[in-house]
């Protein structure tokens, strides 16, 4: 299983992330990034996200919580 933080950092095109970072604060944030996160969650965690789920998550910690909720 890929490391969650490093994979999300790669999708967001940054070296490191903090779990408290707001998703929309990243320069790379756009609909393609959202799609990449949807695809990552689908392949890695078998979790189907909508773009609303991602927007509601607000932060990277919020995204991480979704994995826990679906376990």
């Amino acid at each position, binding site marked *: 299983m890929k490391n969650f933080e490093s994979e999300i950092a790669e999708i967001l095109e940054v070296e490191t992330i903090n779990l408290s970072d707001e998703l929309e604060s990243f320069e790379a944030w*756009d*609909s*393609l990034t*959202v*799609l990449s996160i949807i695809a990552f969650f*689908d392949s890695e965690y078998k979790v*189907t*996200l*909508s*773009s609303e789920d991602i927007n509601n998550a607000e932060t990277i910690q919020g995204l991480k919580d979704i994995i826990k909720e679906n376990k």
Partner: protein
Amino acid sequence: MNLKYKNKKITGILTVLPEKEVKFDDEIDNYDFRRSQSMKLKLIMGYDKRRVVEPGITVSDLCIYGLNHLFDNQLLKKEDIDAIVLVTQSPDYIMPGTSYIIQGKLNLKEDLVCLDINSGCSGYPIGLSQAFMLLDQDEINKVVLLNADILSTKVSINDRGSRPLTGDGASITIVEKDNANNTIYGTVNSDGQGAECLIIPAGGFKTPSSSETAVLEKDINGNFRALDHLYMKGDDVFNFVQTKVPLMIEKLLGNAECNKNEVDYFMFHQPNKFILKKLADKMDISYEKMPNNIVEKFGNSGSVSIPVAITFNLSEEFLNQTLNICIAGFGTGLSWSSMLIKFDKLDFCKLIDFK
């Protein structure tokens, strides 16, 4: 729903693409996004070139051009056609059906079935399914399946979500009776609750086009679009495809008692490179067996994309070999449909330009 057809075959496929090519790079400045973002999108989605019609060219023009090509090259005889089935979402008129326009202009016989089907990205297997059913009639021996769309004319120039992937085109597939005692397996599924995921909101009888429906508005993703324009809810469509298509193929192959490895090619609808790669990964199928290069070269032409993928990538194979092919379409409706067909060597399999 599982479907089965006996003693039918496809004998030829022709694709007609408009000559005019539009490059993604030339349209980047129309989008309200940074250039670097759009270049990343280009790379991942496989956006590059797409074929679009010149203003005034219609679906019937593309189909008639292709049919005349077949008549002129002795690949099809007018009098042999017993039915034409046209799958399109961009008809010449609201009434009459465009299949009648094609019949009239080509002076085809009166003893003919003309049928228009409103179906989009799942429309290739759906059209084939209709053609196979018509062939159960004693007097119908040859059906011409036409798939054609010109939806490039319905995407907003400021919509980065839909415009860079939309292409135009037409295809002609000849479907006939066969006595080889073969079986073609199929599936059809529908989910009308997802109707708004892929929609042109205005221009029908519910919301006729007006000055209000032509007003551009910005959506949450930063795309500008009017109600007259095609709208795609990208994330919902992505999830729909990743959820439904692998299960559909599993069911199709299970019903046909066919192992995945016995399939020579998975010729799937071509929405974009990203979605096809994710689909292949999820289904554990190699990229070689599931071509994904059509959007970058020609654009996504709806139900025409499977014939484009066949005629562009595999015409030598289809002309010279027998092949076990799995076809799948998925999109507006929502609708998803598939077929498993053993192809005999085709009489023709080519792609021509509409000039």
